[in-house]
């Protein structure tokens, strides 16, 4: 699906620019975007290094159990297949906490760390596991209690009470997150039913868990 979307976006852009006689914009856009991508990745190095350093301290000292206390039941319910004290669970919980609190750039490093830990439980390294899909589902739906960026933007554009959209945002977030979690479950079971026994090999997965857990 990503392949179709990717090729489709590029093809549509080139064809439409051609029809509109704006073909000369295509090449500059390509290289400006590519440069932006590299600069995003480079600026991510600083953020990642700092937050992963702090994450290590939080984990090693046991402080993590205080940070993630309230979210634990939710995460255990969402990811029944991940051992409770596994580092993947810790990183996912830190990611969810950072998202909820609107901690901006802290959520991404924790999320990437979580993916790396989830990958150690993956028996097919080029294919997403069920748990990865669920984790991505809640991240694309943006689990948030305090939409800091939007509130700041409202303050900047002269809203009388910039925070009065928090209520509606929480309700809308709840809707999008519920749809994400639900559709993730539906797709998962549909896939299992479709390729009975072939695709996500549950036996192999269990063995790996035993070793790592």
């Amino acid at each position, binding site marked *: *699906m990503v392949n179709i979307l*990717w090729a489709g976006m*590029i093809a*549509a852009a*080139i064809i439409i*620019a051609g029809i509109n006689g704006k073909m000369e914009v*295509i090449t500059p*856009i*390509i290289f*400006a*975007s590519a440069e*932006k*991508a*590299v600069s*995003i*990745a480079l600026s991510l190095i600083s953020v*990642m*290094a*700092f937050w992963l*350093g*702090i994450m*290590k*301290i*939080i984990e*090693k000292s046991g*402080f993590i159990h*205080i940070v993630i206390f309230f979210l634990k039941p939710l995460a255990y319910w969402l990811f029944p297949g991940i051992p409770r004290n596994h580092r993947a669970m810790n990183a996912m919980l830190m990611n969810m906490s950072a998202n909820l609190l*609107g*901690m901006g750039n802290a959520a991404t*490093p924790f*999320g990437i760390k979580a993916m790396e830990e989830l*990958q150690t439980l993956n028996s097919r*390294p*080029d*294919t*997403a596991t069920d748990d990865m899909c669920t984790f*991505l589902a809640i*991240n*694309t*739906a*943006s689990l*948030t209690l305090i939409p*800091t*960026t*939007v509130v700041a933007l*409202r303050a900047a*554009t002269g*809203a009388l009470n910039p*925070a*009065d959209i*928090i*209520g*509606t*945002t929480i309700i*809308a977030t709840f*809707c999008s997150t519920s*749809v*994400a979690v639900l*559709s993730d479950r539906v797709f998962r079971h549909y*896939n299992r039913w479709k390729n009975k026994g072939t695709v996500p090999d549950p036996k192999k997965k269990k063995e790996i868990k035993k070793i790592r857990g």
Partner: protein
Amino acid sequence: MSPFSILNIISIWVVPSLILLALIFAYFRGVKVFETFVEGAKEGFGMSVRLIPFLVGMMVAIGLFRDSGAMELITRVLAPLIRLIGIPTEVLPLAFMRPISGSSALAITAEIMNTFGADSLLGRMAATMQGSTDTTLFVLTVYFGAVGIKRTRYTLAVGLLADLAGILAAVFICNLVFK
């Protein structure tokens, strides 16, 4: 004290106080804080560099789609259909941009607020939409890219469904609360 100033204080305090508490706690638990920090921070470089090919591929597609006029055309073609569901035409570009590009979506939100007013129904609707969904394509690219996963299965469909749900919920709730 207004809710905004309380929120503002929370959002300013949360990161520094987390760091402070973590350090104090770790120090008294006998963790060698600086060594541990460096050990963790080391991993940041490799993870970020591994992302570059995935980000380049996706950002080029997004840039082309957005700036070539393709996005505008598709928005215009689909507009009558989407008005049927009840999404106002003015917030339509935002609804389309939100899953694709976070920074462009934020720019559209700012524009809607400037044009119609931050306290208008449309302004509040845009703010709610912006806050209640995330940039699906960016999240997928970064998270899967970091670990080199190429077969992403149904995650794109799930992310886009969630975006649609968030956008529809934002329109519905804002109509209910702010009209």
